[in-house]
């Protein structure tokens, strides 16, 4: 086995064949149009999708790629999706070389070990032709409601191999020169629990790619396919140059950072190490995850594109936000993962819960970068989502399925406090309103409040987590609780304190208390109450230096208790 795999999206098209000087105005006009096209694809994707996942959670993304597989423009969507499209497109190009691509083709795949990330995410790629010339690739990814496997929703937290996670698709032609692959569709429909939803969402993906293709053709008609390719090269080169200029402002060196997942969902007693060494040098930014733990039995493994997604997020976060996002931004990035570890598992290791791993890996890169440039990056945030899957049965026999995605506080930074309960890094899903949950399920929400004293103290305070409690009113319910940060806190910086860890507890109807060890599958009965406190973000700077007016404000507004204030911040009056 090779010791380490180096991933780099930097398949630079060296020595552009388009020698002529490009009109800088046309380049900028086309750039604005490409952003517009990507966002129009995204609108089409979300609006014409059918499953609640996409419509309510916005779990779908659209993007444009060059024919050489570099990101050309991204919609405003989910960073994790957008970055994992890069190796996925490379794989499609390897399987269906441009010379073999034909007008009317659409390719599909979902297998993590061949370029995907987890099975519910199905990727579609459509080659865009103008006048017989391949101009670009339009892509759309959707988290589908179900792709088969051992549990409804295809996210089994107790899976120990990928075969339990659903149907695996290698790169295939979903549409061949305009003709749908009915064989593939028949297999798909037979292997998933909700075939209508799957077909509806696949059609939405096709619609998004079609819109992208139509508008790219209009661009090619105006500017010519050849000039368009030259403009794409210029745009990528510019973003690369601008990103390198941003990187040049950072000190050279190697900066390590380590954090731990609570456990892998199967071996509950063993925490899982995520270790990164971030090197900033003339070549750019290198994120080496080789020192992370070996692959785990549970589904928290992440195929290499996950580490790449963490790196893509970091390089975009550290560079000037006005830089147009495209593959040029990612050229200075190199990500190293080691075979047999958490970030490059050997099949058939399960991978469905990889989001938790990728979110924390992103937090680790940001933690390392903070050592390099303390002013530019915040103290640790929670970088975790507490995910609850609830499948219940009322006493009248009717069933329901629902879920919750709860987040914690963000890290404080050199110029401000962390933010309470906010999605960060590679994820961006919405929470569910109390009034929606109670209407859907016999669950009574007892409270949903900010969690006082959970933000790490500091000159700038970490953002707060939330306290929430659910009582089951009727029947029974299978609860899958996928926690994080129960055993590892967000670390403070420059004298700032850690954010509070997650606490989860079930109080049974008879008063018995059961502490939840981060991940658990259990049954709740009517009268049982689930209490969850999500983690706080960490503080930045010495708490004794906190502005006393802001401290008093925190006390008045219920973010910090007087007792905790005295203990952590020193005398309130100065």
């Amino acid at each position: 086995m090779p010791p380490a795999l180096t991933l780099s999206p930097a398949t630079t098209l060296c020595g552009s064949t388009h020698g002529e000087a490009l009109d800088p105005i046309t380049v900028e006009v086309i750039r604005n149009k490409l952003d517009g096209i990507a966002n129009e694809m995204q609108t089409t994707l979300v609006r014409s999708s059918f499953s609640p996942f996409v419509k309510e959670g916005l779990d779908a993304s659209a993007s444009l790629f060059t024919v050489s597989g570099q990101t050309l423009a991204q919609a405003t969507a989910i960073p994790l999706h957008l970055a994992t499209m890069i190796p996925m497109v490379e794989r499609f190009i390897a399987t269906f070389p441009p010379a073999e691509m034909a007008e009317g083709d659409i390719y599909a795949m979902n297998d993590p070990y061949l370029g995907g990330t987890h099975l519910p995410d199905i990727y579609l790629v459509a080659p865009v032709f103008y006048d017989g010339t391949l101009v670009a690739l339009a892509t759309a990814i959707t988290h589908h409601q179900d792709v088969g496997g051992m549990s409804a929703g295809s996210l089994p937290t107790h899976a120990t191999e990928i075969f339990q996670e659903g149907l695996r698709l290698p790169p295939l032609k979903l549409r061949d020169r305009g003709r749908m692959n009915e064989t593939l569709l028949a297999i798909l429909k037979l292997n998933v629990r909700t075939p209508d939803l799957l077909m509806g969402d696949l059609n939405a993906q096709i619609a998004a790619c079609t819109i992208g293709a139509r508008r790219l053709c209009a661009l090619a008609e105006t500017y010519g396919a050849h000039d368009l390719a030259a403009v794409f090269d210029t745009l990528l080169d510019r973003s690369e140059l601008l990103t390198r200029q941003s990187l040049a402002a950072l000190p050279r060196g190697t900066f390590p950072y380590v954090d731990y997942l609570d456990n892998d969902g199967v071996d509950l007693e063993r925490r899982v190490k995520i270790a990164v060494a971030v090197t900033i040098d003339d070549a750019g930014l290198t994120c080496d995850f080789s020192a992370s733990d070996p692959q785990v039995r549970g589904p928290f493994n992440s195929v290499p594109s996950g580490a790449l997604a963490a790196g893509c997020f970091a390089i975009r976060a550290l560079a000037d936000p006005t830089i147009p996002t495209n593959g040029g931004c990612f050229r200075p990035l190199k990500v190293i993962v080691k075979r047999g570890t958490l970030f490059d598992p050997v099949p058939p290791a399960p991978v469905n819960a990889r989001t938790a791993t990728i979110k924390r890996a992103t937090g680790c890169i940001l933690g390392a970068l903070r050592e390099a440039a303390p002013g530019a990056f915040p103290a640790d945030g929670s970088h975790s989502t507490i995910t609850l899957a609830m499948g219940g049965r009322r006493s009248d026999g009717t069933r329901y399925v629902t879920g919750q995605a709860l987040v914690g506080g963000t890290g404080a930074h050199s110029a401000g406090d962390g933010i309470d309960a906010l999605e960060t890094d590679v994820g961006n899903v919405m929470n569910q309103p109390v009034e929606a949950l109670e209407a859907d399920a016999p669950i009574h929400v007892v409270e949903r409040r900010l969690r006082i004293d959970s933000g790490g103290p500091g000159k700038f305070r970490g953002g707060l987590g939330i306290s929430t409690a659910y009582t089951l009113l009727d029947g029974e319910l299978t609860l899958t609780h996928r926690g994080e940060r129960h055993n590892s806190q967000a670390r403070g910086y420059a004298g700032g304190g850690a954010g509070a860890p997650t606490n989860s507890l079930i109080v049974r109807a008879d008063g018995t208390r059961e502490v939840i060890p981060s991940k658990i599958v259990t049954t709740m009965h009517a009268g049982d109450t689930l209490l969850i406190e999500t983690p706080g973000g960490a503080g930045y700077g010495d708490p004794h230096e906190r502005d006393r007016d802001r401290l008093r404000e925190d006390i008045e507004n219920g973010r910090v208790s007087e007792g905790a204030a005295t203990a952590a911040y020193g005398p309130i009056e100065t």
Partner: protein
Amino acid sequence: MSIEIGVDTGGTFTDLVCRAPGQPPRILKVPSTPSEPSEAILEALAHARREWGIDAADVTRFIHGTTVATNAVLERKGARVGLLATKGFGDVLDIGRQFRKEMYAVKMVSQVPGFLAPGARRREVPERIDAAGTVLVPLDEDAVRAAVTDLVENKGVAAIAVAYLFSFLNPTHEARTREIALELYPHLAVSLSHEVNPAFREYERTLATAFDAYVKPTLDTYLSRLDAGLKAASVPASLQVMQSRGGVASAAVARLRPIRLFLSGPAAGVVGGRIAGESAAQQDLITVDIGGTSSDIALISRGKPMLRPEGLVDGYPVRVSMVDVNAIGAGGGSIAWLDGAGGLRVGPHSAGSEPGPACYGRGGRNATVTDASIVLGYLNPAYFAGGRLSLQPELSHEVIAREIATPLGLGIEEAALGIHRVVNAQMAEGIRAVSVNQGLDARSFALVPLGGAGAVHATALAEELSIRRIVVPRHPGVLAAAGLLSAPVEHEASSGMQRRLDAFGLAELEAALAALDAECEALMRLEGVDLSRRVVSYFADLCFVGQSHHLEVPLAMDGPDPLGALYEAFLSVHDRVFGHAERQPAMLTALRVVHQVWPEADTPPADTPPDAEAFKGTRTVVLPGAGKVDARLYERERLAVGTAIEGPAIIEQADTTTVIGLGWHASVLAGGTLLLTRAENA
């Protein structure tokens, strides 16, 4: 004599339009007085009386479009608000939906308006209603008394927002809370969530209620001061205000629900755009109001302004229905700059009005879109904003040469044209996004350019969008004020619910609508309008079971099966907006009743007399795709009806300049509206 006056307050100018039977409308502009906007309004009125010899006693309608509500939010100058919430849920405003707008941000900023009622001004009240509307915990009235007293006495709050869980299903606790609050403090402003925004999702409802409370005292003070000023000026008409949906209401009613006033000004502009479109027999319109720092885009389909169920105020989602006006961050003041890789970028930073574009001569050192317009020959430096501002074109040339042309190795005109091409591409993408979101194809619409700079960009923008018709209103700079006079008096009432449509009976529907009808009728009676001319329309908010974002669907009660027809109408709207519609069960989330009384049909304005030659000579301009050409130059107010003009041409008037590109044909219609059309093969 019956005189109608519309006054629209903008950031820079306050516009007044005065209409008397059988006469063309008269307009005037005075500088706005942001610290107390009513001063400029009363000054404009005084001016109109002086200049035009108007007798205040003849003013039968006085209608106002205001930005006071929005400014109170933008400047954080609203009231101190206290918030009462269900026990356990006091922090709804801070928790929000946990979603962030900037994908790659790491130094996070708050995404929620916690400033409306910070923790110290929130109180939890023991009470609880469940998802069926059943009371689980009765209202603790003593706790309400203690909380209100504490908030008023110790926290100095001037307004109370009350947002209890599921109050939209059972309003008794909120209603009782108001009674208690008013027993204690009869003059306290109280906003109840089931009245402000009767719909599910506690964050969005609480946010809307807190915003309503936040601006209520401000609007109260402002509108009563303006009303008193009008009375003092002997105006007998009672003050009316434009609301966000595009209808007007008496100030006395409007101030009860100020959250409906956030888009008061822009809604008037959209109504004005509709009137202009009608004068050119166009019913499908896209209005583009190009201002200094941003541009507002709105759609009018089949003569009706498109509405949206939720809009953004200072970036926060305010869930009340309003005209679908979308702001994009590109305007005349947008700054052109070069990034570190030599790329030409325009915006999002703007020179605003201070210092403004370089040509204003107020120290602006950045190249703006307006400076580019000067270099391209579109604007007449001596005739900008009606001659109030004398521009210094040499400063535009200097700044574009220095900042853009020289570093890029381009000619100065080439650079200026580049700035226009880039900003036009941005605006075109903005327009396309708005139409895609409504499921409409921009190509079949006519463009209505508004604001001082709209008509400068119109033909270039239309070409970007494959639009072939442009309607330039006679007075695009004061269209909002004109729109005020043409809008209906409108009242709306709604009730929220969570009911499957197939389990909803006709009798129940009729009873619910009758209650809402009675509510609207009571409000209409306060307007003093002729109730026999009332137009009543019904709407329902629907989604598929399992979805949570609804669509507003017209509800026709005159057919044999109103509920069946409603379902079909829902499928058709869903198909238009989302691109599909399966015959699945639908959920009814709200019923809405709208009562309107439209103004008497406008008397057609007298045609402009061709008392003098409109042609003023030629000017060299630079046009996209044509380069340097001689454009014929016209004075708008002297153009006779029926005049035909071929591009390239420039038409100047006090409040805007119309640039007519190559391949465009202009004709002057009755009332002075310009219709620009492009040959099919151009």
